[in-house]
């Protein structure tokens, strides 16, 4: 198209305004946080002045603390473990749901999909709160479980404020994120492939394991990324439903920023988390590119 001055101005305006906003309120804060990780904590919390007595105050103390004190690595590892478990159980639960919706006829499909998404649109805290009720000590579930345990002479086990509660809620909150990409993938599967396999003698389990599941891997990876990365940084769920043992990296970050007020150290933790998240997101994107061959025709390559 002819590049007239007005056209170019329009182009700069349309891409420029959102760009400016995001630079101001996303990129720059991120850079400031990186900077903060090299500074010293202020006397009353926060950050101490950048320039003091004519010298720029930058150091690696917070970083060395992170790398020397093993407890932070342990907490990080625990967060990774919880995120892995969450991803695994989400996959287990999401697969039948996605498969059912994918198999359904056109009429039901949209409704079934909507039903999966709806809970996601309710407030996050409500979903956490709901599990507080279900797992509460006086609620039916806890009482029946503990009743059963007391039969065997076991001590009552608190369901609430435990790792179990945290995990259940993590799975609950992230489930829709696993269902959607999985469904998007399964929907494209060609029934003819399964028919051919059956014709060649494969039973139900074999058809699933050798055909459906491998072909669904791109959807699995996408869902895994959508679950694992947010789950890694979660703090509200352990905060509300977890016990003292269940502090995850997100909780520590929150603590550093709002309670201990050691902002440089909090920034270090955040940066480590960001690097991990971005690396995983990059990995997921790379895997997705390599796996562009969806079961039917070629994928949509428009950016």
């Amino acid at each position, binding site marked *: 198209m002819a590049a007239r001055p007005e056209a170019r101005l329009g182009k700069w305006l349309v891409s420029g305004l*959102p760009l400016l906003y995001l630079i101001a*309120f996303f990129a720059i804060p991120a850079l400031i946080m990186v900077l903060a990780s090299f500074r010293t904590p202020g006397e009353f919390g926060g950050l101490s002045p950048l320039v003091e007595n004519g010298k720029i105050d930058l150091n690696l103390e917070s970083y060395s603390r992170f790398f020397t004190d093993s407890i932070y690595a342990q907490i990080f590892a625990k967060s990774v473990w919880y995120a892995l478990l969450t991803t695994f159980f989400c996959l287990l639960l999401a697969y039948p*749901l996605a498969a059912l919706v994918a198999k359904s006829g056109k009429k039901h499909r949209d409704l079934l999909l909507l039903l999966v998404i709806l809970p996601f649109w309710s407030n996050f805290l409500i979903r956490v*709160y709901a599990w507080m009720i279900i797992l509460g000590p*006086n609620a039916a579930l806890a009482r029946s479980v503990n009743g059963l345990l007391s039969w065997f002479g076991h001590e009552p086990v608190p369901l609430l404020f435990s790792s179990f509660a945290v995990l259940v809620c993590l799975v609950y909150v992230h489930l829709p994120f696993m269902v959607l990409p999985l469904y998007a993938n399964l929907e494209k599967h060609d029934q003819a492939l399964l028919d051919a396999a059956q014709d060649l003698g494969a039973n139900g389990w074999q058809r699933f394991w050798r055909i459906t599941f491998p072909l669904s891997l791109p959807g699995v990876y996408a869902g895994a990324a959508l679950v694992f990365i947010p789950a890694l940084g979660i*703090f509200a769920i352990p905060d509300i439903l977890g016990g003292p043992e269940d502090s995850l990296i*997100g909780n520590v970050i929150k603590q550093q*920023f709002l309670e201990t007020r050691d902002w440089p150290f909090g920034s270090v933790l955040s940066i480590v988390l960001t690097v991990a998240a971005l690396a995983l997101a990059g990995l997921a994107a790379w895997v997705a590119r390599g796996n562009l061959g969806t079961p039917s025709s070629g994928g949509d390559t428009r950016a």
Partner: protein
Amino acid sequence: MRRRPVALWTAAFAGYAFLYIPLVIVVVYSFNDSRLNAEWVGFTFGWYDKLFHNEEMLTAAGNSLLIALVASAVSTLLGTMAGVAMYRYRAKLLSILVLTPIAIPEILMGVSLLIFFVMLNFTLGLVSVALAHIAFCIGFVAIVVRARLAGMDESLTEAARDCGATPFQAFMHVTLPLIMPGVIAGALMAFTLSIDDFVITFFTAGAGTVTLPLQIYSMIKIAVTPEVNAVSTLLMLLTLALIVIASHLTPSLLRSD
């Protein structure tokens, strides 16, 4: 469908049950005439009544609404522009900045904005929350708008220009009307995300400002009463209404394409 595999149906049904039973319990107990969310005693509207007389709750609700209106308006405008830029001009840097907030855990944005505002000596309050919400809502609107543009026939804009329309006129008369359902869906989504947001608001609200999710949080942590159930139920109804409207405008929003 030829055969209905029982195993699949039961597993899927269990999945749906898992998704909905907790929410149903919240709703049901909002009418429970008992302080404890333990067992059913009797039916009452009392908690809703208390809710509507709860000053703090009403202020929080008002704040949430105000922030959501502002945030959704601005992020829809900027997000639509971003969506157009990403699709038409393949703006690489913009794409990265638009999509990254969605890809990383929310706490990171909350924390970095906290440092940012404090460093600028910007008082934390309604405005800081709104600014933060806009930042992460832009991405969602941009994605929806971009998808809608991708589904539109390219030659229509060319035809408009061929008929004598300047690029701006072509956008206003042809492109915009055709992507409008996507823009509205994006706006509704931004509104919902803003009203529901907890993590980012938690870090950028400061001491004196409370939004509905923050109020719910403090109630959960400090003194749980079924008022929480009541406000949760109302929020769910609101969200449900918005989603139904949005899905009517863009049926393709829910499909895999």
